[in-house]
């Protein structure tokens, strides 16, 4: 009753495979999946009878229908993965023979694979492979005659370790291309990310979000203090929100700058088309992602729905980007009259003096930076500038930009991130959603676009605020346990970063570096493909070659039998051949009484044969003697 059997183990393998995916599910989806799980368990425990074919078919339709209703579609990640799990669970109930059982195991590979749609961190990878090894053990158990699960685990461990080793070799040689071939899957789920428009409350909503937005590592050590990461540039203001260009205009050429630096970035899904770059990006190594004239990175075709790992060249100095247009001065009619008045007061000054005046206004008037700004009405810039004076970075930035436009200084708002938390072990920076920030950029004839951050002018602490955010409470700082926990978390984070950088982020350019390291410079896709096929071939042969070694060894051991057979072939008189039921000594006696020639050699040959066969010899002494005597035997 309680002993292990095939369906119990297959159930457990599907359970382990789906476990990490379940973590990411919505409660109602979990409930739908929960039903077939319970149904399966009850059948396995013999509480209810297994269903008939018709019941099973109707159950299949039922669950497909329910999931289709819940998600409105079936081929997205969020509907597809639960459907796969439910179908696999129903497959267990339908198994009739060995083939069905193996197919159920293969289904759990698919479930495991679906995990990469949710997470590809180092630890999920470890779990994925462990679970795959478990499934392979179950496959072994199904096929093994002795039904001892421990033995199948041992077997599959040794098989899997070899497989992993060779898989990594193939992994590094598999030719990578610069961009993906066809379309990417789309995820319906919308998670928090940087706003597509800037209006009061769009960024402050992220202030309490601790999710990591991206990780960045600089090639050279760059001071973290005052590190701005640019994402979107907002050029148009409609009175309430700032909007980016749709679509952004491509920059005329890639810019070359002597002061260029490199940064490696792991960007978590933004579900938008904008990518993050430290300061001003210069070019991007991937096709399909362009530099816009606003000095941002824009993915022309696909949204960033997966973790994006890339290297970007950037500069801290503003390069010579295109001059501003009319849109950078345009103000909506009928909004914020007071602010327009204030701005137009400065028109007599030179543009850089106007900017100074603007900043002075923020410094003088005791503006308060707060996560909980008061509710503003239609003319929120007027209300913010002259009445409440409390706000988040978007209030500061949009008000300053508005004042500048009123003073006829071309301005725009840039959205991105500021700050981050350094991981000292791997030397990268974690930038969280709570580091989201908006600031202003204004145009000066002789300087180009320059960054003005009115938030910092009034609240210089903003730069320091985000470091050590989680453990910033007094309790956290004093407690040794929290320090320890933090350093452990840092280690895990560092391992994950390394994994993302070297393995998950292994791409076209890293592969080129790897080939260069091997002394194979400038390989095109075709040459790489051929090399890859050769390596598949070699590694397969290497695995199979182990058989050859064993086979050769086997032949050595029965050499004496082969020699004996040769000897038997020499004898023409069939009566003198060794009979099957005859022992070798009996045969020897029979031969002794025969009238064969070279009787002495034959006797010696048989005696050496017997010695080799039943006593064995360390070196091939007996075999050599047998060969010698065999040559002498002639009839």
């Amino acid at each position, binding site marked *: 009753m309680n002993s292990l059997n095939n369906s119990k183990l297959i159930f457990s393998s599907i359970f382990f495979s789906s476990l990490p995916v379940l973590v990411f599910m919505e409660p109602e989806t979990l409930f739908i999946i929960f039903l077939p799980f319970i149904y399966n368990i009850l059948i396995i425990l013999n509480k209810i009878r297994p269903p008939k074919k018709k019941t099973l078919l109707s159950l299949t339709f039922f669950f497909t229908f329910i999931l289709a209703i819940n998600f409105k579609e079936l081929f997205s990640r969020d509907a597809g993965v639960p459907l796969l799990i439910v179908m696999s669970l129903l497959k267990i109930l339908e198994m009739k023979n060995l083939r069905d059982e193996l*197919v159920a195991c293969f289904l759990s590979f698919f479930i495991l694979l679906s995990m990469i749609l949710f997470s590809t961190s180092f630890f999920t990878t470890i779990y994925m492979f462990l679970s795959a090894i478990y499934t392979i053990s179950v496959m072994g158990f199904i096929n093994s005659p002795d039904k001892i699960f421990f033995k199948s685990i041992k077997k*599959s461990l040794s098989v899997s370790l070899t497989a992993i080793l060779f898989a990594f070799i193939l992994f590094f040689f598999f030719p990578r291309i610069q961009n993906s071939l066809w379309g990417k899957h789309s995820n319906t789920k919308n998670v928090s990310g940087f706003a597509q428009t800037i209006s009061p409350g769009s960024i402050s909503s992220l202030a309490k979000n601790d999710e990591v937005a991206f990780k960045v590592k600089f090639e050279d050590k760059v001071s973290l203090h005052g590190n701005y990461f640019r994402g979107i540039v907002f050029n148009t203001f409609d009175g309430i929100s700032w909007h980016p260009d749709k679509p952004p205009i491509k920059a005329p050429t890639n810019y070359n700058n002597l002061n260029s630096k490199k940064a490696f970035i792991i960007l978590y899904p933004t579900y938008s088309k904008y990518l993050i770059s430290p300061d001003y990006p210069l070019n991007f190594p991937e096709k399909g992602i362009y530099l816009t004239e606003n000095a941002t990175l824009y993915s022309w075709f696909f949204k960033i729905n997966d973790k994006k790992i890339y290297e970007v060249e950037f500069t801290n100095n503003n390069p010579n980007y295109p001059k501003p247009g009319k849109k950078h001065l345009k103000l909506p009619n009928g909004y914020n009259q007071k602010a327009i008045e204030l701005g137009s007061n400065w028109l007599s000054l030179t543009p850089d003096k106007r900017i100074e005046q603007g900043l002075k206004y923020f410094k003088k008037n005791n503006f308060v930076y707060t996560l909980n700004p008061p509710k503003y009405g239609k003319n929120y810039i007027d209300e913010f500038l002259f009445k409440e004076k409390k706000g988040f970075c978007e209030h500061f930035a949009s008000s300053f930009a508005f004042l500048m436009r009123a003073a006829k200084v071309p301005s725009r708002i840039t959205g991105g991130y500021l700050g981050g938390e350094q991981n000292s072990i791997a030397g990268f920076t974690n930038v969280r959603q709570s580091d989201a920030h908006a600031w202003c950029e204004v145009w000066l004839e002789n300087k180009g676009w320059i960054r003005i951050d009115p938030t910092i002018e009034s609240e210089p602490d903003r730069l320091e605020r985000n470091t050590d955010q989680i453990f910033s409470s007094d309790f956290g700082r004093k407690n040794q346990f929290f320090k320890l926990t933090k350093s452990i978390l840092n280690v895990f984070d560092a391992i994950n970063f390394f994994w993302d950088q070297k393995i998950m982020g292994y791409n076209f350019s890293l592969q080129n570096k790897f080939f260069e390291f091997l002394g194979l410079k400038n390989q095109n896709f075709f040459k790489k493909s051929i090399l890859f096929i050769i390596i598949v071939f070699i590694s397969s042969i290497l695995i199979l070659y182990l058989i050859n070694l064993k086979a050769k060894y086997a032949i050595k051991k029965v050499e004496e039998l082969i020699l004996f057979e040769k000897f038997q072939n020499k004898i023409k008189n069939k009566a003198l051949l060794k009979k099957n039921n005859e022992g070798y000594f009996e045969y020897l006696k029979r031969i002794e009484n025969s009238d064969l020639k070279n009787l002495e050699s034959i006797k010696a040959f048989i005696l050496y044969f017997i010695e080799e066969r039943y006593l064995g010899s360390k070196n091939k002494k007996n075999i050599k003697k047998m060969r010698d005597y065999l040559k002498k035997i002639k009839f």
Partner: protein
Amino acid sequence: MKFKLYNFIKQKIKKKAKITPLEIKKNQIYILPTSPGFIFLLVVFVIFAGSFNENNNMGLLFSFFLFFIFIISIRETRNSILNLKINSIKFENSFAFSNSKIIFHLSADKNEKKSIEISCLDKNIKINSIKKNSSVKKELILMSKRRGIYNSPVFNLSSSYPYGIFKAWTYIRSDQKQIVYPAPSNNSISVPELKSLMEEKGKIKESLNKDDEFKGLKEYEKGDSIKRISWKSYSKGLGLFTKDFGEQKGFDEIMIFFDKIKIKDTEKKLSLICKTILELELMGLKYGLEIENIKLLPNKGKEHQKKCLEILAEFKNE
């Protein structure tokens, strides 16, 4: 067409079947994916194509991992029958159209062998495992064919250990011949009839000893004819006794002359003789056989019976 080609290749391969005793070498093993194996390969390919399209490194790594599980399976499955020794395949002589036993004697030297299946026609046997340095004897029961002496049929020795995604197999045949006796007919030739046939042949050397008397009971010994058992005394609960007729020279020496039995159909004649021999052996009489040039002098015992039946099996019907 495809099916024919497949069978043609199969026949060609089967002709190469190795003869026992043998140790299975690597060049004798054929190996192909099973149907779940092809599904597995499809799974690997789908995972690979999807990951390639998505540029997903983790998926690629996983597909390569499964690919090598597939490749290593070839080796493991091959190893599961490699170096397996088939020491002998022995046929137990049987009567036509009855069950015949085939005894396989297998041994493993290097490492443990698992999940081995031996099949012939639609029958198969499974050997769960053969431990290192040990041997196993297994019986396969097949329906025997017509009377005659046959070369060994080709056996298919296979294994899909460890994952069932590959099947490795080899063809083997025994160095021994399969001897099939004629099927015994329902009736036999009675002893007096045989005597008269002998008289006809004129080769009786001694007259029938008519005063063979019942000399008493003796304790049953192994090999005594069942027909002589005194069932009366057995039913009384005295134990097994056989009736002792004393020395029965002359009476129990019977020769069967093939050409004296007047039945046209040779096969029926052989069946009749077969049954007669079985009866005579059961009666404990001494009997001999003469077919064409072959002559076996009267004797009794299992060994003798076997010799007689083998002659019947071997007889060429022209």
